[in-house]
């Protein structure tokens, strides 16, 4: 007989094992879906997860795709660890892109080493400004940060729409909804000739290192952890909650804003209506799949990035609808949440009684 028993304490091994289990279950379920759709499951999975990264170019594209996801997810982990539910990273990314893009456009006909740092800084500030809205409303007016941050996503997209259609549209562009191309000095340098991977990856790596240090080596990290477990305990311990809430939001906003900078000054090179294919939302999956751990997030961002690339390859070579990529992302999150059950419960095998 099998009995389900509640664990006294969540198991630490299982805490880091469930993401692996979730990915495995996603592969099995994905293979099953391919089979039902009439595709050879192993071949489909090969085109989904191996072919896209089989060469140098493919691998560089994987890193390019994972960079914004990793950067945003690191930022989000500051919020999520401390019980602050910032769902609006997409908006912070967009606003960061708007501010940095605006600065880049000011310098559109100029060259100079000083331009790029200003553009990057502007993006971080944009993200910070935008994240401060839900943070301040939460701390001083007790609003729900989930709703505020989510709604602000749509506001930011409308602002971007307005700017690229109207005042910032390319004067030589027949009024099409896009800005001028940025000057070379406002573009992040490419790391290798012929590949799109750019210096933005160092921003993501720096965020990983800094976050690890903050989480595990600083007083702030400890505060965040305690607040995450129990807000009451944090209050009892005398932590100044408001300061911490605002701080984690600002860090999160800065990371999302920098991800926006990476997109527009990296591969895109201008502002238009679609600077991000919802990286800010997908990064939420990445953050949880990575267990809010900096190293975990690196792996998670690579896994999720590959679902984007794989979906394209699978459509090109096997005519599998590209939207299966989103199905895979959904399944990963679903199986992760489902297998979290194992954190708190365990199966006990009991011999049948005589």
């Amino acid at each position: 007989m099998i009995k389900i028993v509640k664990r006294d304490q969540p198991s630490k091994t299982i805490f880091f094992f469930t993401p692996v289990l979730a990915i495995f279950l996603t592969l099995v379920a994905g293979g099953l879906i391919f089979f039902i759709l009439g595709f050879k499951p192993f071949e489909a999975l090969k085109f989904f997860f191996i072919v896209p990264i089989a060469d140098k170019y493919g691998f560089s594209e994987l890193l390019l795709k994972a960079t914004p996801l990793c950067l945003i997810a690191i930022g989000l982990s500051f919020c999520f660890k401390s019980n602050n539910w910032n769902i609006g990273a997409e908006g912070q990314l967009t606003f960061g892109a708007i501010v940095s893009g605006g600065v880049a456009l000011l310098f559109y006909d100029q060259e100079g080493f000083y331009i790029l740092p200003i553009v990057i800084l502007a993006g971080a500030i944009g993200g910070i400004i935008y994240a401060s809205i839900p943070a301040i409303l939460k701390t001083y007016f007790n609003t729900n940060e989930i709703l505020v941050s989510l709604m602000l996503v749509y506001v930011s997209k409308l602002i971007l729409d307005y700017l690229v259609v109207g005042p910032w549209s390319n004067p030589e562009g027949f009024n099409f909804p896009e800005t001028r191309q940025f000057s070379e000095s406002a573009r992040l340098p490419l790391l290798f000739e012929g590949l799109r991977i750019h210096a933005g990856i160092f921003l993501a790596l720096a965020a990983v290192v800094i976050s690890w240090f903050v989480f595990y080596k600083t007083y702030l990290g400890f505060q965040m952890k305690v607040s995450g477990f129990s807000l009451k305990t944090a209050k009892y311990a005398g932590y100044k909650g408001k300061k911490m809430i605002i701080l984690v939001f600002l860090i999160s906003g800065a990371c999302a804003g920098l991800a926006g900078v990476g997109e527009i000054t990296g591969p895109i090179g201008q502002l238009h209506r679609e600077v991000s294919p919802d990286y800010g939302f997908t990064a939420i999956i990445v953050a949880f799949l990575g267990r809010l751990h900096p190293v975990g997030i690196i792996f998670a961002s690579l896994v999720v990035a590959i679902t984007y690339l794989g979906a394209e390859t699978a459509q090109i070579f096997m005519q599998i609808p590209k939207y299966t990529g989103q199905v895979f992302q959904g399944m990963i999150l679903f199986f992760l949440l489902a297998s979290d059950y194992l954190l708190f419960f365990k199966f006990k095998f009991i011999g049948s009684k005589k």
Partner: protein
Amino acid sequence: MHKFLIRSFVSSLVLLFTLTVAAIAKDVKAAFVYIGPTGDHGWTYQHDVGRKAVEAAGFKTTYVEGVPESADAERVLRQLANSGHDIIFTTSFGYMNPTNKVAKEFPNVKFEHATGYKREHPNVATYAARFYEGRTILGTIAGTMTKSNVIGYVASFPIPEVIRGINSFTLAAQKVNPNIKTKIVWAFTWYDPGKEAEAAKALIDQGADVIAQHTDSTAIVQMAEKAGVYAFGQASDMDKFAPKAVLTSVENNWGPYYVDRVKAVANGTWNQKDTWHGIGDGMVVISGLDSQMPSDLQAKVKKLQADLASGKVHSFTGPIYDQKGNLMVAEGKTADDGMLAGMMTYVKGVEGDIPK
């Protein structure tokens, strides 16, 4: 014996020739990049109908749907160029810069970009359709069928393509009914059924009894069906979605062009050009006319269609005035393509301002 030899020699030559042509033809692979899902029953759907025509002509095709205009477009293009495709059609405006960028890296692959204006490399061609000719027909029908003399128009983005459509529609409607007014709602989207339906509803509430659209979903014709007003299908024949409301549709017919261009690659005759085809070349097709239209209107429309096709009638024939009453095109003259390509002012009779 001689005859037999010659005959078999000739026939084997013919056979060899057909085989080679067939082999060359079969070897060319075409790829299509779509902004939306192939099942949108609008823009992407019609491009996919065109792709199927290329398949039917004996060529292999590949497509990738739902490719965002973000940094992802460039990767998809590069992957298609890298995997043995000889010609790649990029079917949305936002692919313009990635198309030109990737074209530079793959000089042996031909790129065809829809609705754009940049041809930075010899292997990039552009193509678009003179949809405004279709809108001349719709305007004629709308001006005749309206009772309230208010015609609604759901527009997407204030770009020349859309402004041109509004103007051509309004001019044609005025010609048959000088009292009409065209009211515009800007949806700022190409495809968003919710927003489009709302826009249509707002126009109906303001008294519009005929709704035209320059967005891609079927939501507007369905809203018109519910409200009991007339509408026109966009991009594909939308009659089955709103049989009472839809009077006719303007269909985007890309197939002939696609087959032509892929064949040109196979024959080695592909060249860079900017194509802008209308009703005459069959790129713009008017669907069947609804029986609710009086027979004299149907006859008039048929004639107008033939005249637009032959070039006897031009959608923008003077005198044309702008909203302030300034002359845009003089009497007896027609607007040239340069003017059409950059058209950013409303003609007289359109209400409101172009959003800036």
